[in-house]
């Protein structure tokens, strides 16, 4: 799995369903991560990054509450749209206006 913040963990993440009582643990202890929950479908506006304006300050990465912004090998940032809820903090905080929020066609 490439181009994500959580790599293998994202690839391994599964929705867990329990069909018989024997499948349940004895105590309510967690068995997986929330990475199987793709919150990207909450989004109305999507952040679009213009690399020509990006100065690699990583302020967007710093302030992403999901987090859904990751840093690529070339040092530019990208968005994991499987998780991005489209809050727009990244676009609001970007000092060079390299991120714009665009209405998403679904």
């Amino acid at each position, binding site marked *: 799995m490439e181009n*994500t913040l959580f790599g293998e963990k994202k690839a391994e993440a599964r929705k867990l369903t329990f069909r018989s009582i024997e499948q349940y643990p004895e105590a309510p202890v967690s068995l*997986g991560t929330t990475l199987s*929950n793709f919150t990207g479908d909450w989004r109305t506006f999507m952040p679009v990054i213009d690399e020509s304006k990006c100065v690699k300050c990583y302020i967007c990465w710093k302030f992403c509450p999901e987090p859904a912004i990751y840093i690529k090998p070339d040092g530019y940032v990208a968005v994991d749209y499987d998780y991005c809820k489209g809050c727009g903090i990244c676009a609001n905080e970007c000092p060079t206006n390299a991120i714009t929020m665009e209405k998403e066609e679904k």
Partner: protein
Amino acid sequence: MEIPESVKKRLTLPAEEHFYAGHTACQGCGASLGLRYVLKAYGRKTIVVIPACCSTIIAGAWPYNTLDANLFHTAFETTGAVMSGIEAALKAMGYKVKGEDGVMVVGWAGDGGTADIGLQALSGFLERGHDAVYIMYDNEAYMNTGIQRSGSTPYGAWTTNTPGGKRHFLEKRHKKKVIDIVIAHEVPYAATASVAYPEDFIKKLRKAKEIPGPSFIQLFSPCPTGWRSPTDKSIEIARLAVQTAYFPLFEYENGKYRINMPSTRREPKPIEEFLKLQGRFKYMTREDVEILQRWVNHEWEKLKKLAEVFG
């Protein structure tokens, strides 16, 4: 994905993530960002205690965990007590607690769970001197139950149980100064922090780990849903809270007060700057704004004096 080494050097926060995406916090949630920073500072060797609050939901419904750290969910008023028990057990079982390579016990509770229902357990935890850090993420109302006022709700705020009307005003009381109550316990370390200043917050989290005994951090944590603010303005609002001196950043360390950047550098901006981005304040009159401004001024002068005398 591994962040390139050349980039890591330029990052102002730890690169590793121990807070998983896919959680169900609202868009633009300050609390989820705060929890992400806490886990960046402390990593996996951490036991987090979360009482009833938004983070109960954010941390994942069973069978999922948003935290890449051990987490014990508990009842609303018990954060301080459960932390105490965990710390005692770790010591009984021979673990190093706090300090370098020590296990971090973290209480992560909202303002309702801290200023109101959990105040007694917090006081007990502080007074007994347990080696752990209690973080109050302050979004200034009971948000998870649907925006009811807490002791930490500011003057003039609309909430669902201070709706305002012909006979009664909105929230009539000023924000409870929980940090002052904490400092009255003469704790070794207490601080305010903001999600808008994560470098400062992480520095404080690290201090809270190094200094033995109980530590407390009050983290200003915007809530677009409850504050009726645009989701993209969370950081901007949190920054303005500091710049207006509504929520100044400071530390109390071994009896000494220190005001932190950037709140000392310039004169505070007028409180309107902070208020105008939030729908919860839109019913305030000019006079109300003045009342709040006077309170902010008074508290800010008091803090500056404390830093001057006990700095």
